[in-house]
């Protein structure tokens, strides 16, 4: 399933991350997953939240650069080899992984992963076909 991810520019300054999550808290936004990619100079914070559009508006209002990016939610067995099986499907279909990170879902016995592939539609299609898709949006956004 394709889901909405918030991508946020994080300036390399003390307290920047904190101020971002505080803005989300003030606006009653629930974060279900996050990851940060950082360089020596700046970072990109990626978030899965319950209300992506509201979150974007609130951050923008505060002068923070934010974008909504489409990513694929991948559901797999919460057992050894789970991630490998999913990635095998991606690899076999000649899709590149731009980035990925683990996410928290509600479905018992399953693990959740957020994937940003080089080809979004194709990745979604092949993963769904292989049984790694089909997630209830509520499970991911925790609505």
């Amino acid at each position, binding site marked *: 399933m394709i889901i909405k*991810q918030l991508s946020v520019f994080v*300036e*390399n300054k003390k307290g920047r991350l904190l101020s971002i999550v505080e803005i989300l808290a003030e606006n009653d936004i629930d974060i279900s997953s996050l990851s940060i990619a950082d360089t020596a*100079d700046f970072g990109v914070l*990626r978030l899965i939240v319950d209300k992506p559009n509201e979150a974007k508006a609130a951050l923008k209002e505060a002068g923070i*650069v934010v*974008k909504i990016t489409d990513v694929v939610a991948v559901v797999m067995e919460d057992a050894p080899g789970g991630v490998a099986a999913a990635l095998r499907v991606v690899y076999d279909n000649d899709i590149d992984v731009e980035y990925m990170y683990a996410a928290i879902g509600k479905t018992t016995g399953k693990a959740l992963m957020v994937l940003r592939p080089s080809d979004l539609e194709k990745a979604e299609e092949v993963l769904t076909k292989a049984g790694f898709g089909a997630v209830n949006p509520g499970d991911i956004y925790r609505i």
Partner: protein
Amino acid sequence: MTEPMRHVDIETMPREKLEALQSERLKWQVKRMYENVECFRNRMDEAGLSPKDIHGVEDLHKLPFSYKSDLRDYYPYGLFAVPLTDINRIHASSGTTGKRIVVGYTKKDLDNWADCLVRMLKAIGIDKSDVIHIAYGYGLFTGGLGVHCGAEKLGATVIPISTGNTSLQIQTLVDLKATVLCCTPSYALYLGEEIERQGLKDQICLKMGIFGAEPWTEEMRKQIEAKLGIKAYDIYGLSEIMGPGVGCECEAQAGMHVWEDHFIPEIIDPETCEVLPKGSVGELVFTTITKEGFPLIRYRTRDICQLNYEKCECGRTHVRMRKPQGRYDDMIIIRGVNVFPSQVEEVLLKVSEGNITPNYQIVVGRENNIDTLEVNVEMSEELFADDVKSIERIERTITENLRSMLGIGAKVNLVNPKSITRSEGKAVRVIDNRHLV
């Protein structure tokens, strides 16, 4: 429809006639300044010159220069050419480049000043039906009152809002339906962004704007025009010479006309002080030939400029000055290399393909006796991507372009939007932490 000119005979005067007029006025000015201004008299005497040696504009190059430091050395009234009883108004410059300076105007000076502005306003098609929102600073700064008096003389509706309080500015633009905006270009851009952000663009009635008091680029003009949906005109001025309106664009937007019946501009080589051939780039120098209260002969502006003597398509014969390409004072020397903020701006505009507000700040420091150069660039939604690689590519492109433009390396920092100090008057473009004496 183009407005009729304020003074058709003067504004379209053939050069020969214009020079004859300048010659008469120059002689008058030199004589009275010699009699009334001690500093000028001393310099003339030192150069072995008497007012009789000046027969016309052809002798202008013989006259001694005057400098910003004169205004400080003779502070407050030492350079005035009339007694204080004849001075009608005082202005003072904030001194972005040093100590405060004071200038004075007689009744006639104020009239002439307003007239210069009326000429400009008409030259860009403004008439008495326009509502002019003046967000230049009022008070001792010449910007606000200067444009104000011209706009009033034209008979337009003037809103003297002055600077500051952006939300009030926007509310006023919406409520009072101003058609003309006057402010600094960086503030115009900021207003444009705020108006866009608040979704009020369709409630703004602006047709055009007159922007000056700080350097700006053609790309900034395009951005302002697009963001506010207006035509953006350039105005040039400095308190020492008069204030806003020393130079100003006409509808052709092809250089700023300098009203040569009041001011004679020259371009000189700042090193040798020789007058350069027409069309050369050099330091802009002004002589005021009608100013009574605070006249200056060959005043060194420190602005890097170029003059175009060709007749303009608007029909005016008065010389056009190019937008100053920087100031010799703004030049920073980093590791022995001359760096102008305008060069950095050029790189950023190129890299962003005109997409991003060119807000940046140059920070110069010194570590282990070596100069360091950092350029802070504000991140924008257009530049941002969700993957680190793309952002790093932009950072690298800016760094590489800066290196080839400046000839030295610079460290580029991407910072949050609107995090760089945007003064509602002038933008702080350079921070020099070297504290060299």
